[in-house]
């Protein structure tokens, strides 16, 4: 059969000019490999974010002051204006006022120099929080204890794992009992958080945080302001209902202050949109190398056609139709691209595995990326092989027979 003969012939022809075949393969392997690696890394990141997100729970709302841009934040009209802030009392009143919310955890970011033993602590940020903060953010205590609401106005702090790890290098012993300076105040460490994987859905980085009670924070921090509040929605209540209640609460309590309530669904939707853009971008970058690889295939096929002009003439004399010749060369370029594609898939999956390993992401084999690789390499073979194959099929048999 023609197909069988063509497959055999293509394999032979590719093997007979090994060097050229290998060079073309490298191009295709890198092209397909980078597309696969990019797409699969995109997928891994997406799944990783979603996984972390699910760990956080889908019943968490984030409440922030609306910084403007929204339709309900018109300046003037007796409103407190942009200077208005979320007040701690109003926040703590939420569970009482809104039946849909059972817990709230406000958070205030602190400025000022942070040091230990007189030396600056790199990568550390102070946060003012409440007792509910630990549970609502799904954090765990590694050593010591967490802050309670009995620690109001106290000079205690709980530190993240990365902060604790810095302390021995700065001449400290046990982290518990150590004294950390934030601005002008000294805080005694009473607990250390368990390490948390990086890059979660939280609005802060737990590993590098120094947590103090929010009441202390409001006094100790320069320009202290409550940036955001995390609220836990009561079981059986929809995020939307709870969100409406929170908005209504603030409208009643603080005239003119508008808040923005973000639900996990919105975050996920936003995130997926961003990830899609990200994956698309990565795919586009990969495609460029794929085109380069494809041009390599075309080049090899054109050389192959030129070198085998006489062969083409002989085949035509023996009764091969133009379509037979075109098919023969197309099969050859598709085989070349498919072999390159398969190697590229291995290369791409391997590369994404290595990236995932070093970024501490959970590796996931993406079947769609593999299907994409096989499909794309096939398409590259057909697309970039068609022109040379057509050139071969259009050769005049007499001219082809005379060439050497």
């Amino acid at each position, binding site marked *: 059969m023609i197909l069988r003969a063509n497959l055999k012939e293509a394999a032979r022809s590719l093997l007979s000019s090994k060097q050229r075949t290998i060079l073309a393969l490298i191009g295709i392997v890198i092209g397909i490999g980078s597309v696969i690696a990019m797409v699969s890394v995109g997928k891994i990141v997406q799944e990783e974010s979603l996984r972390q997100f699910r760990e956080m729970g889908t019943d968490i709302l984030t409440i922030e002051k609306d910084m403007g841009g929204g339709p309900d934040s018109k300046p003037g009209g007796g409103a407190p204006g942009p200077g208005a802030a979320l007040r701690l009392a109003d926040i703590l009143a939420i569970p009482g006022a809104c039946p849909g919310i059972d817990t709230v955890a406000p958070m205030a970011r602190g400025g000022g120099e942070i040091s230990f033993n007189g030396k600056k602590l790199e990568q550390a940020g102070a946060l003012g929080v409440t007792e509910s903060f630990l549970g609502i953010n799904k954090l765990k205590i590694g050593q010591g204890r967490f802050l309670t609401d009995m620690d109001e106005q106290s000079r205690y702090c709980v530190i993240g794992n990365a902060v604790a790890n810095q302390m021995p290098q700065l001449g400290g012993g046990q982290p518990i009992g150590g004294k950390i300076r934030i601005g002008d105040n000294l805080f005694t460490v009473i607990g250390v958080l368990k390490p948390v994987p990086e890059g979660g859905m939280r609005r802060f980085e737990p590993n590098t945080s120094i947590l103090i009670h929010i009441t202390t924070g409001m006094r100790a921090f320069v320009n202290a302001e409550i940036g955001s509040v995390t609220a836990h929605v009561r079981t059986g209540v929809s995020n939307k209902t709870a969100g409406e209640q929170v908005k209504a609460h603030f409208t009643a309590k603080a005239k003119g202050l508008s808040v923005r309530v973000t639900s996990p669904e919105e975050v996920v939707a936003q995130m997926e949109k961003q990830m899609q853009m990200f994956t698309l971008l990565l795919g586009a970058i990969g495609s460029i190398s794929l085109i380069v690889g494809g041009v390599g295939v075309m080049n090899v096929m054109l050389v192959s056609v030129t070198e085998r002009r006489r*062969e083409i003439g002989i085949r035509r004399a023996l009764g091969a139709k133009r379509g037979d010749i075109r098919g023969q060369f197309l099969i050859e370029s598709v085989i070349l691209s498919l072999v390159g594609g398969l190697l590229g898939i291995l290369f791409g999956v391997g590369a994404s595995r290595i990236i995932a390993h070093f970024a501490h992401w959970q590796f996931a084999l993406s079947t769609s990326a593999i299907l994409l690789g096989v499909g794309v390499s096939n398409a590259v073979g057909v697309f970039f092989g068609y022109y040379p194959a057509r050139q071969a099929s259009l050769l005049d048999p007499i001219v082809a027979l005379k060439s050497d």
Partner: protein
Amino acid sequence: MLMLQDIRKSYRIGPTEVEVLKGVTLEIQRGELIAIMGPSGCGKSTLMNIIGLLDRPTSGRFLIDGSEVSYADDDALSEIRNQRIGFVFQQYFLLSRLTAIENVELPLVYRGDAHRFTRERSMELLRRVGMEERAAHRPSELSGGQQQRVAIARALVGKPSLILADEPTGALDTQVGHEIMELFRTLNREDGITVVIITHDPGIAAQCDRSAVMQDGVIVQ
């Protein structure tokens, strides 16, 4: 079985038109062994291309087995070449990557015949030309005479009604050339195959039943 009537062929080389065939009329009977002879440049290669359906005449009629063929489309010409014509070339033109038997099979492959059948039939033909021992060898492992025998087997494998041989002994020494001519004569005598041999060698022409002599684009005798 072959009928050429006033075949003309001209090529355009730059601004001038060169007429290579100036009205060739020739009739070849079934089972004939005929030589087309003439000095180089007389147009015999062009004539062979037209008879072999590798080229189309500018004007004139060309009939195989009574049907007009030379103006058919490319695919149809390919099919007629495949079914009815067996080519033998001066340079053998075997495909170097294929073994002898795979070379012989080629015309059948393009017919779409099943592998088992093509193998059997090709082996039969290799036996006929005395090359069955070399079926698995590649052309580079064969002598010129052996390669030409394989090429003849390839020409015969599709049971053509016509063998068209272009200087089949031109690249061989006299002794081997004689053997190849002997093979053509045997095939012609025993199987009744029509053989057309294009040559410039009067010695070869003398071994044929009949010879047509070409000069300057026409057949002179």
